């Protein structure tokens, strides 16, 4: 058994080397397919990040009547926090709001003067509520309609932004759907191209397979080297695809982060390099082994 396995490895290494051109072309095709696959991974990371950053911008603010005691507001904050849909609730007191307002307009003399002339704080205390998903704002807004709460509330921003939130919701859902569709379609195309390349490579070896069979080689011994070659080609292509992707990511990263704040695709690349290599390797080796296995099968009949 060990003899057979070591012979299979020896044959595959020699074939790999001696069929130089065929090997090179196969590796190039798998590398291209893996680059497509890598592109899809990056696309998904970018859209996820974009969606997350847009979602992060959506919130609803609840403004309280100026005479509402702070304890009451903090109680309401607690009750809102206990809702399943709610991710975070920030309390901004009227003093804090004024501070922020003053800081924002410190260069504007007219506004500063107007505020100081007013004598009292005209701003309302508020709660800024963020949900896990944009679709949950409707039910949170519904909760705030409760008469017990409503008596303290001066206004809720949801009513004003409802249309925008709903539209964003629909757009995000569509982006997710398109991303998934693209991933499936392009992976399938890349897979088929590799499958056909390997099939052609093995087709050009069909006479050899016949000779091996005529000399008495068992199916394992005939098929083994091709499968191992598929593994080698897949692994080499996985490494190559990441080496090619590296400078591209470096180049594109600053542009992407100017579009989507907080997105550092090069950081993502570095911190996930091993799992990326794992995905690429798995896809490359998987398609290599599968294609070789299937392609040789038809020549093992006689």
């Amino acid at each position: 058994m060990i003899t057979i396995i070591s012979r299979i490895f020896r044959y595959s290494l020699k074939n790999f080397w001696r069929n130089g051109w065929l090997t090179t072309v196969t590796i190039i095709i798998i590398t291209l397919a893996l680059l497509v696959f890598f592109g899809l991974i990056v696309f998904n990371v970018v859209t996820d990040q974009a969606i997350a950053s847009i979602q992060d911008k959506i919130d609803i603010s609840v403004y309280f009547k100026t005479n509402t005691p702070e304890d009451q507001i903090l109680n309401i904050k607690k009750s809102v926090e206990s809702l399943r849909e709610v991710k975070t609730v920030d309390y901004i007191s009227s003093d804090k709001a004024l501070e922020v307002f003053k800081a924002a307009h410190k260069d504007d003399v007219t506004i500063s003067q107007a505020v100081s002339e007013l004598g009292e704080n005209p701003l309302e205390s508020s709660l800024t509520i963020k949900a896990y998903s944009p679709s949950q704002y409707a039910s949170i807004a519904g909760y705030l309609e409760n008469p017990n709460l409503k008596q303290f509330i001066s206004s809720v921003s949801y009513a004003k932004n409802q249309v925008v939130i709903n539209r964003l919701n629909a757009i995000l859902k569509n982006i997710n759907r398109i991303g998934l569709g693209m991933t499936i379609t392009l992976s399938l195309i890349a897979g088929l191209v590799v499958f056909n390349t390997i099939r052609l490579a093995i087709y050009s070896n069909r006479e050899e397979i016949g000779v091996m069979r005529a000399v008495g080689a068992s199916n394992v011994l005939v098929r083994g080297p091709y499968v191992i070659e598929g593994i080698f080609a897949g692994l080499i292509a996985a490494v190559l695809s990441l080496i090619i992707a590296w400078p591209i990511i470096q180049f594109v990263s600053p542009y992407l982060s100017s579009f989507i704040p907080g997105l550092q695709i090069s950081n993502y690349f570095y911190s996930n390099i091993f799992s990326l290599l794992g995905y690429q390797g798995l896809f490359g080796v998987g398609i290599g082994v599968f294609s070789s296995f299937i392609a040789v099968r038809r020549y093992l009949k006689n």
Partner: protein
Amino acid sequence: MVNLQNVSKIYNHNTAALEDVSFEVKMGEFVSLAGRSGAGKSTVLKLLIGEDKPTRGRIFLGQFEVNKIRDKELPAFRRHIGVVFQDFRLLPTKKAYENVAFALEVAGRPQREIQELVPQILDMVGLSDKMNNFPHELSGGEKQRVAIARAMVHRPEVIIADEPTGNLDPLHTWDIIGLLKKINQLGTTVILATHDREVINGLEKRVITLDQGRVIRDEEKGKYILI
């Protein structure tokens, strides 16, 4: 050793490639299958090595009933015979040495034995100085000698040669026939299909003549005669 009993092979549209062919080859015999192209020589050989199955009849080779061998058992069966083809069928990415060694490797023979046997057999066919050449670096006659070395290195009981001199010039033809005779003298049964009149007449061995899928003559020390 080899026994065909009422063997017929009918391809599509009722074309009979072989009809009711029976003959026996004893151990250590040298038998030529003669006949024009399409007479059925190659079909007989294909059935003998299990590349195809007969429509009717039974074929015995050594302890095997060839017509009953399943796909899975074919490799093991093929290691009991040696086959030489007209087009050599060497593995192009393997050197002469590796091509011959391959027949032993597939049988799971240990490396030490292979390293000892292969040079011996290449020496016997006169190619000890070409063992590191790839097939494309060899002449037709040399390729066929490598193929014969590969067919006999595992000491098969029978060597089946299908027009082994078909692609060779007269000089190399006699080289190859000489080799086959030598192998036969060492005790191996040889079945040779050929349509070469000179070869058959020069051999002075048993000749089975086929015509239109039937055995029309079977003579010891036969000559190439066609109706």
